[in-house]
Structure formats: structure tokens, C-alpha cells
């Protein structure tokens, strides 16, 4: 029996009342973006209907209410990843901007030609391209942790890779393979070499209880929209001493203390990094999403996903055998609920298209991880991914739809 009551949970998500092609929606693309529970939509609606004003320094009642709600969301986000302090959470647009913020502010202030950054072959473009831009600009060297045959980090040469490195920027969970990387030992190794550790926690935070202190990370990046929250907001967590030492990134209102014609002084952190009117109502929704999933309990969420993922892997293998190649660790305990596969010579786009006929939503393509796809030697995979509202019946629907696709494209 599952740790979650999925039937009840599904009813919390209005989109599951919708049908596609006359069929119930089987949403298996949460690794791309999660659906939103009513509690999140209601919280945002209430913010707009009853407490909306621009925040910070507004003296009147609704401005104070809006400010309090915004800062309250920051507290929820901080607690959710066990940040030691609330003011270590910077609100950004998404995980991508969080990583870019570190690249523009911390890295440009600290890294120069000859310095190295260590990444891995399984990084999302969000944790690759910002460093490539920096590398091209500064002559910083990028080094890559390769993969084992079982789709895990190959740490054989880790010490060499870290030698002279200033930053290890690594995903806690691959959005393609599902691989969970054990951050703490990596962080210990990096710190022993004097490198800081940035964790791309975009896939991890929504699915596994996250503890930045247990990780001993220096920066972590994640997005609201993958944690049942709204689009338009994400977060950077960073150690306060780092944030304080970092130069500002975007300039404008709120991030300043004082502005004169000849220069400006910056505000306290985290506001120093939040220029202009922030995503006020999105923060409220982000907070509500965290409340929702915290009420389910992250341990139950993880247990449930393990169950569904195991069922999916078994079902796929049982039904399709050698017609199907799964890219991801064989041991379910070391992975999350993103299942990528290649199917019987049928292109991922065609599979996804045929599955859509049965309202089964899966992602097809390179999943913003082209370096990884090149390592795998495939141009595109089909990916099904699971979250709290998915159950075995959704997996069964996937299997049946895949069988149809197989028949449809049979040569």
C-alpha cells in the first residue's frame, strides 16, 4: 500500500477534471513541470483579490499584508530546505536564474583564467551554459565528471578533477536518468580542495526531503513550478557570508540602500539580489505549495514515488522486454521518478504524439541535457515522470498506450 492516498490527492488538482480526446488526463511530465493543487491557486487568488499591493515600505494596510505574505513565503522556503536562516533565500525567476546569479555575481568576482569548475556529464543546460558563458569570457576551465555504465557519477578521478577547482556545480538528481547523486561526500571532497559547492536541486527538492546543512552545500538552486507551485518564481539558497560578500547582480529598486548620482550602496541580503518588483503573488503560491507538500510529508512523498517508479520499471520490462531500453540506474533506491527510455526504434516524438491520443502526457526530446544525450548516443528519449498525483493506474495507462504506439508504427 502506498504512503499517499492518490485518489484524494488527484481531487486536489483541478486539472484532473479535464479530459483530452475524451480520456482522463494521465500526466506523466512532472519532471518538466508539476500540476498545481487548488490550495495554491486559491492562495494566489486570495492574494490578488484581498491583499494586493506592491511590497516593502508601503505604509498602508494592504501593502503591509502583501509584504508580510511575501516574507512569510521566504520563511517557508527556507524551512523546507532546512536553511539555517530565512534571509539566505533569494527569490529568482527559476532555478536557471538562480544558477546564473551565482555565475554573474560570485563567480565573476572570484574566478579568473586558470581556475576550474567541475561539472558532470548529466547536468541540465541550466547548470552548463552559464559556466560556458563564463568560461568563454574569463578563460575558466570546465571539467566533467563522467558516468558509469549504470548511469551514475564515475568518481574514479574525482580528486584529480577537483585539483585546482574553485567550484563543484552538480545536480542532486538527474532530470533524464533519475540518478540521485550523494551530495555530502562530493561536498566534503570539494571543500577539501578549497572549492565551493553549488547543487542544482531543481529535481531533488520537489521529491526528497532536502537539508542544505546535511549536504554542507554553499549554494542550491530550485524552482517553484516543479514543486506544485506557480511559474515565475524560483529560489537560490546560499550561505549568508557568501551572499554578503558577493557583489550585486541586477540593479534597481529594493536592492539599494541609497542612490546618489555618483553611485549606490546595497541593501541587506537577500534584498540586495532582488531588484525591482518581485514575483509577489508567486511567492505566496510557492509558500502554499510548500505547505501542501509538507502536509503530505516528504518521507511519504518519497516512499510513494519509489513505489510507483518500481512498478513502472517492472511493468515496462515485463511488457516490452528488449523492445525497450531504459536509461537510468538499475537500483530504484538510488533514483527518482524520471524514467527515460528508447522504444523499439520508434522516435520519441512519435511515441509522445501517439500517447497523447490516449491523454498520456510524456516528454520527448533531449530534456535540456544535450551533453548527456551525446554520451548516451541517442538524439532523444521518451521520459515519463511521476509525482504525488500519479499511481499504478497511470503507469498501466502508459503501458497500454505504448503498446498501441508499437502496433501503430509496426513495420
Amino acid at each position, binding site marked *: 500500500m502506498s504512503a499517499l492516498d492518490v485518489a484524494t490527492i488527484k481531487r486536489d488538482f483541478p486539472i484532473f477534471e479535464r479530459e483530452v480526446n475524451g480520456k482522463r488526463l494521465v500526466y506523466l511530465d512532472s519532471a518538466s513541470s508539476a500540476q498545481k493543487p487548488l490550495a495554491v491557486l486559491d492562495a494566489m487568488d486570495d492574494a490578488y483579490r484581498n491583499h494586493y499591493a506592491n511590497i516593502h515600505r508601503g505604509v498602508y494596510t494592504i501593502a503591509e499584508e502583501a509584504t508580510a505574505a511575501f516574507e512569510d513565503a521566504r520563511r517557508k522556503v527556507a524551512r523546507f530546505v532546512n536553511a539555517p536562516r530565512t534571509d539566505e533565500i533569494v527569490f529568482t525567476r527559476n532555478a536557471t536564474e538562480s544558477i546564473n546569479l551565482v555565475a554573474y555575481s560570485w563567480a565573476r568576482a572570484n574566478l579568473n583564467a586558470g581556475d576550474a569548475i567541475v561539472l558532470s556529464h548529466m547536468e541540465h543546460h541550466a547548470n552548463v551554459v552559464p559556466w560556458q558563458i563564463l568560461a568563454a569570457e574569463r578563460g575558466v576551465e570546465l571539467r566533467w565528471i563522467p558516468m558509469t555504465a549504470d548511469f551514475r557519477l564515475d568518481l574514479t578521478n574525482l580528486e584529480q578533477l577537483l585539483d585546482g577547482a574553485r567550484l563543484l556545480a552538480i545536480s542532486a538528481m538527474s532530470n533524464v536518468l533519475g540518478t540521485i547523486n550523494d551530495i555530502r561526500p562530493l561536498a566534503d571532497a570539494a571543500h577539501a580542495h578549497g572549492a565551493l559547492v553549488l547543487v542544482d536541486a531543481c529535481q531533488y527538492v520537489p521529491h526528497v526531503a532536502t537539508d542544505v546543512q546535511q549536504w554542507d552545500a554553499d549554494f542550491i538552486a530550485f524552482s517553484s513550478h516543479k514543486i506544485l507551485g506557480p511559474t515565475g518564481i524560483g529560489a537560490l539558497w546560499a550561505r549568508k557570508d557568501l551572499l554578503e560578500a558577493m557583489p550585486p547582480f541586477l540593479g534597481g529598486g529594493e536592492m539599494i540602500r541609497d542612490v546618489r548620482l555618483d553611485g549606490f550602496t546595497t541593501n541587506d541580503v537577500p534584498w540586495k539580489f532582488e531588484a525591482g518588483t518581485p514575483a509577489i503573488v508567486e511567492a505566496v503560491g510557492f509558500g502554499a505549495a510548500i505547505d501542501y507538500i509538507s502536509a503530505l510529508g516528504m518521507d511519504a512523498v518519497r516512499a510513494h514515488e519509489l513505489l510507483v517508479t518500481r512498478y513502472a520499471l517492472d511493468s515496462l520490462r515485463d511488457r516490452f522486454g528488449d523492445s525497450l531500453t531504459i536509461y537510468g540506474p538499475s537500483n530504484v533506491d538510488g533514483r527518482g521518478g524520471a524514467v527515460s527510455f528508447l522504444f523499439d526504434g520508434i522516435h*520519441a516524438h512519435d511515441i509522445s504524439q501517439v500517447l497523447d491520443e490516449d491523454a498520456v502526457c510524456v516528454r520527448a*526530446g533531449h530534456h535540456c541535457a544535450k551533453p548527456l544525450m551525446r554520451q548516451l548516443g541517442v*538524439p*532523444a528519449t521518451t521520459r515519463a515522470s511521476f509525482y504525488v498525483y500519479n499511481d499504478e493506474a497511470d503507469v498501466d495507462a502508459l503501458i497500454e498506450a505504448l503498446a498501441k504506439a508499437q502496433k501503430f508504427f509496426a513495420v
Partner: protein
Amino acid sequence: MAGLEDLYREIILDHYRSPRNRGELPVPPAHKVEGFNPLCGDEVVLFLDVDPETDTVRDVKIAGQGCSISQASTSMMSAAVKGKPLSEVRQLIRAFKALMSIHESKLEGDGGDGSDLAAELAGVRLGDLEALQGVVKFPVRIKCATLAWNTLQQALDETAQTQA
């Protein structure tokens, strides 16, 4: 609501399962061009042999890999242009792109409303190619259908340069 049968017409699946003109041609006299859609990884390899005397497509061969739409479109394109005078091939390219871009212009936002595109279509016999029309109802798949044609365009441009 567009259904699967709009996209995967029988003729398209037929070309996907049994692509026409698959193979290679000696270079030269043929010209070889590779088309690549990095967004989905689809690949088209085109061997185009143009008779410079008659300005006619003497022979064409195709290779590559990708989804059913891109591969069927490539196959259909090869069948449609083989033996045709270049002037007709160019007209066909314009007509096919017009067929696709009436929707695409909406997505890509070049501000056109498609009325000048319709003009490109008038009077051109697309034949089997019309089966690809259903693709416009699936905007993300349009690039799959046009890849072969952009590659053909490139081959023509490069052939013209070589001859000039």
C-alpha cells in the same frame, strides 16, 4: 481537436516505413548536404544530382534518421523533385513552406497574417505532399516536416554557387 489520423495519414506512414530513394550518390557529380534539427536531433542527408545542361534534378538519394514526420517528409520530397526542372523544384519549396508557415508565422511571430503565403500555394500541384498538411495542426511538429525542404533549399543554393 486534431486527431492522430490528421497527422499520420496512411501515405505518410507508408513513406516512413518504406522510404523512397534511400541511398547515396557519388559526389561529384552529386552534391551532398546534411540538415540537422538540434532541438529534436532529426537528421537529413541529401544527395542531389542536377543536370547542368537541362537544369533538372537527374537523381536524388536520401539518408538520415528521425521521427516519422521528418523521415516521411524527406522521402516524399525526394519523390516529388526527382526528374523535375529546378524552376519547378523552387516553386515546390516555396509552396510547401507556405503550406507549413501559415501556421508557423503565427507561432514565430513574424507579424505576417499568411495572406501572401496563400499566394505561393495558388496553382502549385502538391500531390502526395498535401498529406503533410495535417502537420500544421501540431505546431511543434512543423519543424520536422520542413527540415527536408530547408536542406533541399540549401543544396540548391550551394549547387548554384558551384556552377556560378
